């Protein structure tokens, strides 16, 4: 059985001729638990008006999106803010997600664009790398959590100093395991430019971390 649900036109100009109702199928079968649904089914459920399905999407992906944003800005409050912005945009654009890529990939695309836009809009100072102090790689003790955490913090700080496109390229390649071709699409570069950016990102990162034996 199919039921028709009518939504009100959300704006003030109701254009003539554009259908203002969408047909949503409902069935007598029991509604599956959200946790049992895959991402594509969650997207469909959200578009069918199940708001809680989007909460499940957020629950599943927020951690990785947050990590990507954190690595971009190296700051927890901004990272949370950018993560929120990513999901708001995902919500707005959900009807455009047609499953041609994994939902996680699509979210990473949005996240990296949100991060790049933030850097551009805020006009954050991007000092030339040569003017920066090299980060001291610090003592290395493979048995100490503290030392490991400190070292990770230094690496994150160094990554956050990379020029935005190099940073985005490095993050998508290393942490999201995105192929160069896909990074090229996300960043609007050629594959050659992505590889060059990745090469320069690694070179700069090495310099920022200091030469190590």
């Amino acid at each position, binding site marked *: 059985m199919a039921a028709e649900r009518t*939504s009100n*036109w*959300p*704006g*003030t*100009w*109701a*254009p*003539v*001729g*554009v*259908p203002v109702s*969408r047909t949503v199928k409902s069935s007598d079968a029991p509604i599956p638990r959200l946790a049992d649904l895959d991402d594509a089914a969650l997207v469909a459920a959200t*578009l*069918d*008006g199940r*708001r809680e399905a*989007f*909460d499940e999407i*957020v629950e599943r992906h*927020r951690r990785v999106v947050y990590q990507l944003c*954190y690595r971009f800005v190296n700051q*927890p409050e901004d990272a*949370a803010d950018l993560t*929120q*912005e990513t999901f*708001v*945009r*995902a*919500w*707005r*654009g959900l*009807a*455009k997600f047609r499953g041609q890529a994994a939902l996680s990939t699509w979210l990473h695309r949005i996240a990296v*664009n949100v991060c*790049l*836009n933030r850097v*551009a*809009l805020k*006009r954050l100072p991007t000092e030339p790398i040569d003017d920066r102090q090299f980060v001291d790689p610090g003592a290395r003790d493979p048995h100490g959590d503290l030392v490991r955490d400190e*070292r*990770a*913090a230094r*690496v*994150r700080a160094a*990554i956050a100093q990379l020029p935005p496109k190099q940073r985005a390229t490095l993050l998508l390649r*290393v*942490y999201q395991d995105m192929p*160069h071709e896909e990074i090229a*699409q996300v960043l*609007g570069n050629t594959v050659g430019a992505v*590889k*060059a950016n990745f*090469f*320069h990102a*690694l*070179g700069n*990162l*090495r310099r920022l971390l200091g030469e*190590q034996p």
Partner: protein
Amino acid sequence: MTHLRPDELVDLLDGALAPGRAAHLETCDLCREEAARLAMPLDAARGAGVPEPSEGEWARFSTRLSSAIEAEPSPGWGWLSWLAPPVLVPIAGLAVLVFALAVSVDRVAERGGWGAPVAVVTDAAVDDESDAWPALVEVLAALDLSEVDAFAGTGIDVRPGVSERLVAGLSREEFATLQRLIEDEAGVAHP
């Protein structure tokens, strides 16, 4: 034989170096050294985790995000949700609307969509709007946004695939910037 180029060194890190070039690597200390120099920061990056937010922080995050989502129109409307009242204002909004429709009409058609929304919405809009409208439509039709220098540094990314991003949603600031730029380009006087 020539040394490995940067892109070939990147391929090497990916384990995707062309076999012919791998033969060079076998015999060239310089290239092996260069590869090792790149592997160091790569390993460092891979090993650097991110501090995990606490349960309380995630709870606050969820609350804030929920409020933000509540303020948004339903995503089921797709690009039509752009017409939500808080997003658009009359004449400036129309500029953006026509642009959005222009870039998304092919996608709507692909989805077996809803007739000819450009014509329909344009008709409705012309009835409501000022004399500037026909000129605006003309300018917008001729406008190649990738050629508009004014976008540089605005945070609005203009490139192939811009429609994807536009329809995927702009922030308020980006929206305002886009409106202003299109108005400027179209020669619409600011109130």
